[in-house]
Structures are given as structure tokens and as C-alpha cells.
């Protein structure tokens, strides 16, 4: 029987392990102001987090994760470099799967350090891998930064790159946009008619609402410029397709990506970082020759990660969510830092799932 007491005990042991690795324990309130999270994630967070309210403080959220409050705390008055650990409940709204927990204990380890990002990535991954030692898990890794670098360096217009960047975490939408910008998807009829019209605003509908004529004219100007722009080249498209399908063990993935960089030279600095990370992982004793790397990994579920990403999965229990996940979130520190920023990487474990697996294996 996996009681709450046992989970808390396991969580305390994990936290002690992270303290021994140099982390300082932090506490964050369970009720978080909703505004910050809504601003970061928009409407999607309402499907994932419990929102409550009172007449005085307005909308508040039951902590859906620790990362955002820990980053905020660090950006306000953290010394540098810093390592933090925490343990406590997080709450996730469940609307489709009654078997998924809506409240569980999470233990985390976060590193804010600008000296050597590759070493920090390896430190977090290795500490979590060690904590999970003995459980039959498969580790998956990826790097969102490579795709972001590929998009940022495309030989196409800035608005196109901005639109693609905005949808990096929505693969279907990203693909639809890419196909349109490459001239591979037909122009929707209404769009074609709009572009052909001498005066698209001559429809005579009264102007209502806060999105006004200037907004509409600005968008039409963007659409016209887009229609006049050259399609994304077949060469670049082939490079992106090849990049997105890379799925090999780490050293082979790097080799494969170096080949792709012949067509997409803009990813070379990101690949240098991957290479440094592989060396740092190896130095930490991780068997990188057997570690999986998927270039698309983390695109659907991990919105604030923008570099290294990883997850640990119970292969014999595909019904379970990942036992641990983590990654690099430099951009999040920028968003929450009021002008300041610091490279940051972290990961979380679920002690309850660890106990469940340990029990099943004995």
C-alpha cells in the first residue's frame, strides 16, 4: 500500500539528496496569483490548473508546478549562482482521464548558473538519473533550441519566422504554417479574394469592437507582403523535415544533425551546445551511447523549455505519465525577470510513482 506518509518520506529523502548536492530548500505558497500563469500560458492553463477566486485578491491558482514561483523568487532576490530544491503538492485539473491524479507530490532541483550551461544540464540530468537508479526506466532527451535556431535562421520574412516561432509548441499548426509558407498548401479562397480586392474594406459592415480598422489594415498589409514573398526553399524544407525526424542515440543524432547543418547552417551553434552537453553527460558517468535523442521531443507538452529537455518513462507501464521530466528554460527567466535573465535548468520527480514502480518490481 502506498500511503501518503510513505510518499512524503520518499520526497524528504529525495530533497535531502538534492540538498547534499548543494541545493537550498525553497517553499512556495500553494495559492499562486493567477495573472502570471495566465499571462504566460493563456487559456490553455485553465484546462490544466484549478482556478479559484475571492473578492479581495481575485483569481488565484492552485500551484500547477513549482518552476514559475521558484523562478520569480530567484529573479527577485536570488544570489548567483543558485541551486534550489523543493517538495510539495502540485494540482492538475483532469477532464479526460479519471485515472490521472489531480494532486500529487513533486520534488524538484533547479540550477541558475551562467558559467557552464552544458555542465548544468548534465548535473541536473545525472542527479535525477541517480535518484531513479534501480527502476526500469527509459530516458528520452531532446533539444528545443535546435529547432528554434533552425526557424530563426530561415531565409524568409520576419513575420513568417515570428509566426513559426510562436507555434513551435503546437506541431500541427507549425506544420500547416510551414506548408503554406513553402507554397505547398493552397491559398484559402477567402484569402485569395481578399488579396485580389482593390479595396477589401469596402464591404460596408459597420465598424464595431476594439479590434479596429487600423488592426485590419495592418493585417492585410502583412498578408499582401506575405503573398509577394518567395516561398521557403525546398532545400530548407528538406532540412527542417530531416531535423524533425532525427531519432537516434545521442552521438549518432549529433552526427546526423551535423549533416543536416550543411543545409541549415544556422543550427551549428546549437549543435555545438549539444556536443558540449554530450561531453558533460559522459563526464558525469552517463552512458550517452545508449541515451535516446529525439529532435521533436518535448514539443507538445513542455511549453517553457527552450533548450535541453528530458523525461524518464516506465516502459512496462505506458499508462503512467513520465516519472521525471525537466529541461532548460532560459527564456522563462527573461519573461519573469523584468529585464534580467539567467540561464536556468531543472527537473522534477514524482516520488509516488517511484514507489509504485518499486513495489511492482519486487
Amino acid at each position, binding site marked *: 500500500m502506498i500511503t501518503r506518509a510513505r510518499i512524503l518520506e520518499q520526497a524528504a529523502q529525495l530533497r535531502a539528496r538534492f540538498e547534499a548536492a548543494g541545493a537550498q530548500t525553497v517553499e512556495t505558497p500553494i495559492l499562486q496569483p493567477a495573472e502570471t500563469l495566465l499571462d504566460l500560458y493563456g487559456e490553455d492553463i485553465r484546462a490544466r490548473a484549478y482556478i479559484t477566486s475571492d473578492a479581495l485578491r481575485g483569481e488565484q491558482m492552485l500551484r500547477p508546478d513549482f518552476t514559475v514561483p521558484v523562478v520569480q523568487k530567484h529573479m527577485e532576490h536570488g544570489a548567483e549562482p543558485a541551486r534550489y530544491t523543493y517538495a510539495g503538492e502540485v494540482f492538475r485539473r483532469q477532464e479526460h482521464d479519471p485515472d490521472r491524479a489531480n494532486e500529487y507530490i513533486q520534488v524538484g532541483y533547479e540550477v541558475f548558473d551562467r558559467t557552464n550551461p552544458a555542465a548544468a544540464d548534465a548535473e541536473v540530468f545525472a542527479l535525477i538519473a541517480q535518484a531513479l537508479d534501480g527502476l526500469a526506466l527509459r530516458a528520452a532527451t531532446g533539444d528545443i533550441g535546435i529547432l528554434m535556431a533552425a526557424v530563426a535562421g530561415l531565409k524568409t520574412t520576419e513575420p513568417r519566422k515570428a509566426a513559426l516561432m510562436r507555434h513551435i509548441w503546437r506541431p500541427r499548426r507549425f506544420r500547416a504554417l510551414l506548408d503554406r509558407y513553402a507554397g505547398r498548401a493552397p491559398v484559402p479562397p477567402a484569402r485569395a479574394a481578399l488579396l485580389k480586392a482593390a479595396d477589401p474594406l469596402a464591404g460596408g459592415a459597420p465598424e464595431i*469592437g476594439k*479590434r479596429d480598422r487600423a488592426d485590419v489594415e495592418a493585417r492585410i498589409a502583412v498578408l499582401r507582403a506575405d503573398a509577394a514573398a518567395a516561398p521557403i526553399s525546398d532545400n530548407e524544407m528538406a532540412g527542417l523535415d530531416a531535423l524533425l525526424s532525427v531519432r537516434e542515440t545521442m552521438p549518432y543524432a549529433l552526427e546526423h544533425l551535423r549533416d543536416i547543418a550543411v543545409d541549415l547552417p544556422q543550427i551549428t551553434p546549437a549543435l555545438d551546445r549539444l556536443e558540449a552537453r554530450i561531453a558533460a553527460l559522459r563526464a558525469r558517468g552517463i552512458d550517452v551511447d545508449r541515451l535516446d535523442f529525439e529532435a521533436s521531443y518535448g514539443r507538445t507538452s513542455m511549453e517553457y523549455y527552450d533548450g535541453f529537455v528530458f523525461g524518464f518513462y516506465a516502459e512496462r507501464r505506458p499508462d503512467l505519465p513520465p516519472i521525471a521530466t525537466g529541461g532548460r528554460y532560459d527564456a522563462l527567466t527573461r519573461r519573469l525577470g523584468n529585464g534580467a535573465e539567467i540561464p536556468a535548468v531543472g527537473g522534477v520527480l514524482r516520488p509516488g510513482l517511484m514507489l509504485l514502480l518499486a513495489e511492482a518490481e519486487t
Partner: protein
Amino acid sequence: MSLKLGVPSKGRLMEKTFAWFDKRGITLSRTGSDREYAGRVDGIEGVSLVLLSAGEIPRELAAGRIHLGVTGTDLVHEKLPLWDQQLEEVAPLGFGQADLIIAVPACWADVDTLDDLDAAAAGFRARHGHRLRIATKYHRLVREFLTGAGVADYTLVDSQGATEGTVKNETAEAIADITSTGETLRANHLKILSDGLILRSQATLWRSRVAPMDAVEKSALDQFLQRLSQ
């Protein structure tokens, strides 16, 4: 005990439901004064009438407090994410047709599809400093639909009535609401996105999969369903 049939307690939906059952030889009627929510069932044994707000019928079916109920597909899908595990559709009733749609001001010449809405939302947020607001009372359905379509940078604002007026009043930039003829939308200078249909809804008779039944109730249900299939 008797089989409980939940029916909307007022308005056209109640009248049309009564008429639909009447055609099948089951007479539903309200008893007592106009204001008293009590009713009776004639023409079949072992069934009792429960008059409820249409919005509460999904919850009562899912909780198993009524065995059968008449309400719109829109309300069932919005309020019960796992509706097909809790409820079974017995028969669409052929009235109360309405589409849940997304509509934007007709003056938005640049917006015809969800793809346009997404781009407009990004531009709007950059210029006005807040997310594009969509007024609705169907939060879950609309959010899932927009997430599926990859629309970002919007926010839902709650509107329990007169939703078509929110754009002119500048409390929202777009709306998601039910419409049957589109008349009210046009009158409020709104147009439906060409791929903005979220759900086709109509009044439907549902059976609860979870309501407990004794032998008497079970036999009443069999008779009831048999009568409807004649």
C-alpha cells in the same frame, strides 16, 4: 419506485418535448398551479415526470438521480467531458437545433478562418497589450476546439446572455455562442468563421448509464423504449 424522466421546466423546449412524447402516446403534463413544478405522465405505467432547468439535466443524469432526460447536445458535451461513459443517446428529438459557432465582427475583412483568427489574436495582443477576448458560456467546448485548431493568444470571458452584444460594448472582440438562423448575429454585425462550427446541437433524449434501477424500473424502461421505437 418509478422511472424518473427529466424534462425542461418551461418555454418552447418544454412544449415541444411534451408534443414529441404525445405523438408517441405518452402524455406529459404539468399539474397544480402555473408556478408549481410538478407533473404527471399518462399513457404508460411506472414513469414519473421531473421538471428541471435544461442546464441541470446533464448533471442529474450523470449523478444517476434521473433515468432519462431531455436536453441539448451542447449542454451535455459542455458539462460532461466523459458524457459517452455516463449517458447514452436514446433519440434526437428533431427540434431545438442550434449550432455552437465562433463569430467575429463582419468588418474584419481579413478574418475568415481559425487560422486568420489566430493571426489576428497575435497582432491584437501586440498592439493592445492584452489577449483577444472571446465571450461565451461554453468554456470547455470552445477551449478544446481552439486548442485543437492551434489558436493562441486569446482569452475566454464569461457571458451568460446577450453574448452577441459584447463586441459592440467592447467587453469582447469575438464570440462563441449557439445560433439557429444567424439572425441575431447579423443584426449585431457579426459573421461566422467558415471553419468555426464547434458543435451541431439539438434537443435529445438521453438515458443515464449510471442510475440504479430495480426490477420494476427496469421493466418500465424496457416498455418506455419499446414505445418510442414503434
